[in-house]
Structures are given as C-alpha cells and as structure tokens.
C-alpha cells in the first residue's frame, strides 16, 4: 500500500470503443511503475461536490508512462468520466487492492464476462501460459484480446451460447489457476459449473459499492464463507473463490 498516490492525472486519449464503453489512457508514471494486474484505481468523476465518492475502475493495461481504463457508462459517475477530454486532469488514487495471485502456478485459464475480460490483457502480459475464454451478450460487449475463444448469447461474434459451455474438464484440469472476471451472475454461473475438485484454483475479481477504496470505511465488504466479511478494496478485489459466500454476496444485489 505504501506506493499508493493521489494525483491529478492528465488524460492522454479518450475513445468510445464499444457502444457506451469508454477507454481512457492517463499519464501517470507513478501508477504505471507500481501497478499489478487485477488492481484498481479510484477516479474522481468531477471537481464539484457531487458525486461525493469516487468510482473504482480496474487498471486495464499499462502504457509506457501511464495506464488505461475501460468502463461502461452506467450512471452519473461514469457519465461524467466519459466526458473527459485529452489534456483534462483527473484526480486518481491508486494502485489499490491486491491483484491476481501470480504465485499459484504458471498455467492459467482466464474466464471473462463482457467487459470483465478487458483487464485480462494486463494479466496475460504478466504470465506465460494462458487460455482465454470470453462470454458476452453480443458483439457490442466483446473487447478484442489476442488468442481468445469467444461466445456470445446472440451469436453475433464467436459461437452462440454461454461462456460456461466452454468450460471443460480438460481446460480445468490443465490449469493451475483459474481467473474469473465479469458480472456477478456470470461469475456465479462459472462457480457452479466448476466441479468441486477444481474450485480451489478459482480466483474471483469481486465488485462492491465502494466508499473510500483505501480500507478506512468498511463499506465494501464481501461476504466470506466463514460468516464474516472481507474488504473488497484491500483484501480484494481478487479473492479465492472458495473463500466467498456466494449466496450472501448475491443477496447484496449489486
């Protein structure tokens, strides 16, 4: 955590890569030099008083002197963020949280749902051996990553179906680690689709409503299978799948 910084980062480029999906590249050598795959930043959507909290976004990829974010415009905060133009300065705190645990073996299976797959580029850049599966509702929700196997619910790109259909005993058995990132329902479907014996390999990138993002408010708790909670912003966002209490997490209705 000692490398966390809070800086006004300049927007280098901004573009709409898919309908209502914005990619912004920021200048920040500080964050670029310390971020690890799976970490996130806290973005201040406006200089005014509202919204009163920041918005958490995963670091999608590093650039030479900064980093890239990719996000869905779903509400007021992301709407304001989507209006940033090159040259604008945006207050960003990061890198925050833990990332993917890279110590759990070298063969990876990556399973992404929709935009959740975007951050896998950063992870792939850090590991040598990976298989990448992407599921999405339609081509409007697929971020293109190298060497990926894509399915869409409407068949508009890749084969038609759900990403769980791509999960086979073979690719589960081949993997030392399985990274999952996507909407909660999709991640739960993956969890259910993975047989008990492989579940210890699952690493889940969780989401929660965040207040601070830097572990002081206790607002971002993810229900754990021991009955307690852990902080998404500090002990997460990546958790071993077996630690998560899926039922209580789903009840949160994020």
């Amino acid at each position, binding site marked *: 955590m000692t490398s966390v910084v809070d800086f006004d980062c300049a927007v280098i480029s901004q573009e709409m890569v898919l309908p209502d999906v914005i990619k912004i590249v920021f200048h920040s050598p500080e964050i670029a030099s310390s971020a690890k795959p799976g970490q996130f930043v806290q973005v201040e959507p406006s200089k005014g008083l509202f919204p*009163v909290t920041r918005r958490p976004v995963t670091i999608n990829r590093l650039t030479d002197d900064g980093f890239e974010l990719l996000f869905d415009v779903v509400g007021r905060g992301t709407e304001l963020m989507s209006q940033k133009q090159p040259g604008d300065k945006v207050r960003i705190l990061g890198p925050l949280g833990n990332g993917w645990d890279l110590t759990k073996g070298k063969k990876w299976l990556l399973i992404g749902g929709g935009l959740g797959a975007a951050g896998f580029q950063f992870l792939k850049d850090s590991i040598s051996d990976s298989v990448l599966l992407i599921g999405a509702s339609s081509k409007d929700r697929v971020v293109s990553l190298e060497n990926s196997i894509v399915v869409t619910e409407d068949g508009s790109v890749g084969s038609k179906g759900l990403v769980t259909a791509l999960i086979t005993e073979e690719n589960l058995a081949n993997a030392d680690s399985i990274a999952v990132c996507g909407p909660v329902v999709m991640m739960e479907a993956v969890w259910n689709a993975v047989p008990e014996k492989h579940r210890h390999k699952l690493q889940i990138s969780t989401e929660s409503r965040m207040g601070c993002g830097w572990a002081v408010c*206790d607002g971002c*708790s993810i229900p754990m299978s021991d009955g*307690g909670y852990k902080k998404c912003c500090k002990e997460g966002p990546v958790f071993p799948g077996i630690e998560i209490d899926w039922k209580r997490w789903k009840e*949160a209705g994020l």
Partner: protein
Amino acid sequence: MSYPPSISRKFWGLDFDSPIMLASGTAGFGEELLTLDCLSGVGVVVSKAVSFKPRAGNPPPRLFETPLGLLNSIGLANPGVHHVLNHILPLTEKLPCPLLINVAGESIQEFSDVVEVLEQSKTHLGYEINVSCPNVADGGAAFGVDPDVVFQIAKGVSRVTDRPFSVKLTPNGGDMVMVAKAAVDGGASAITVCNTFLGMFVDWRTGKSVIKRKVAGYTSPALLPLVVARVWQVSNAVSVPVISSGGVSHGEDILQLLAAGASMVQVGTRLMRRPFAGAELMDEMQKLIGE
C-alpha cells in the same frame, strides 16, 4: 471569542495546530493513513467504533450514493475490544497526532466495560462515546435520545477512566441540548455534535429500500447548515467544548463551524473521497484567513 476564529486551538488543555479531527468510521484506526502518509494537517484521529465482542457488521450493500449524498449502513463492524487492544492499538503508536477511540455498546454497562479494557493501552488520548449509531438494532441511537441513559453511560465511563471523553449525540430525536447537559453532568469532557442523520432511499419501481436495514445514516455537504445550527445550540448550553461532526467539504465550512461554537471539527465523508483532506482543508483555511 474573536473573529475570524483562530485555526490553531487549545482543546482539553493541549495545543493543536489544526482543528481537524478525522471522524469515526471514516479513518479506520488511523493506521491506513499512516502508510498512505496523509495525516498532515490532522489534529486528532477518531477510531472506528469498538464494541466489547466482535461485530461482523451489516450485510452489503453497506453504502449507497444518492444524487446528493451518501447512505451508510456499516453496523459498527469491528473485531472487538480485545483484538483492538492487542493487535490494532500497537500499530497506532506511530501516529503523529492523538487518537480518540470511538466506543459503542448494546447496553449501558458495555460502554464502561469496553473503556475498562482499553485503559490497558497507553497509546490513545481519550474516548468518543457513541450513543448515536443509526445503524444497529440494540443500543445505538435509542440510547442517545434519553438524557437519563446518557447520564448513566457517561457516569459509568467516568468511573473507569481519567482520560477525557466526548459523548457523540444523535440528531434523530430527543432534545440534543438536554442530552448534552446530561452527558456533561455524567462527566463528559466534550460533546460531539453529531452522528449521521437518518436517511433512506427507496426504489420506487419495487418499493424496496436499497439498504437491507431499510434506514441508514446519511451524509451530504448540504447538511452543513443543520450541523451549524446544532453546534450553535449545544455550545451555547454547555460548558465543555463542542466537537462538530458533519457536512464539511471545504476549509470555509470548518471556519464557519468554529465561528458557530465548535472547538474542533470532524471530517468524515470528505476524507473518504480525499485521503489528503487534512492538508487540503488546512490549506484552504489558511488562504481564507490570510486574505
């Protein structure tokens, strides 16, 4: 008192360069800020609430941002007083400023029980007795509306500690001035005005509250005038210092609260957005005063 108010303060006999206190529940135990190195400009850290036994806290979502403010329903999540004493307070030894420990209880007795255990630590300056949490079923704000109960809680705490303590009041019912007086009669060395206002957000499409416990604590920069009024009322009625809590998002807000009668000023929600709020707010105040 002279105007504009002085930024440096004398409080509980100590000299402070800054009137800023980090509000309970929004600064952990200060140890995260230590690693982030953002305690510059901060006069006092108030810890998150500590209860006797560990409390898991409320089910998520614990936060919901409304168009103009923030609902929180943390539910006093904390690892319990013994864990705090043995594993967290030692980490706070390096804090560059004093620490107040926010104390919660489900019974009148629990407050002094918690304080008694904490007395074994040397690292903290005193306590903030939280009789006003809006987010729990037992105790919490139900205590804070009753002068007799607050008197007994304060009395109980006085018996087990010689350290100074503030009693944090609720704005959600009862007569704040009478409760403040009862707290002072019971031995309180300050009054914190006040805990969060009860708030709620209902999804009209479903009729459901977004928060599982239905009502929650609400904070917003727009609540500043409510806090100013209550600080003014209470500080005119009691002899001990008043610590304000609520509504600060700019240095000017702090100056206004000091002018209204606050001795120290807590900052909560703003800190969650701005880890370096202490230094930023001090800077804003110095610019205004230097004008």
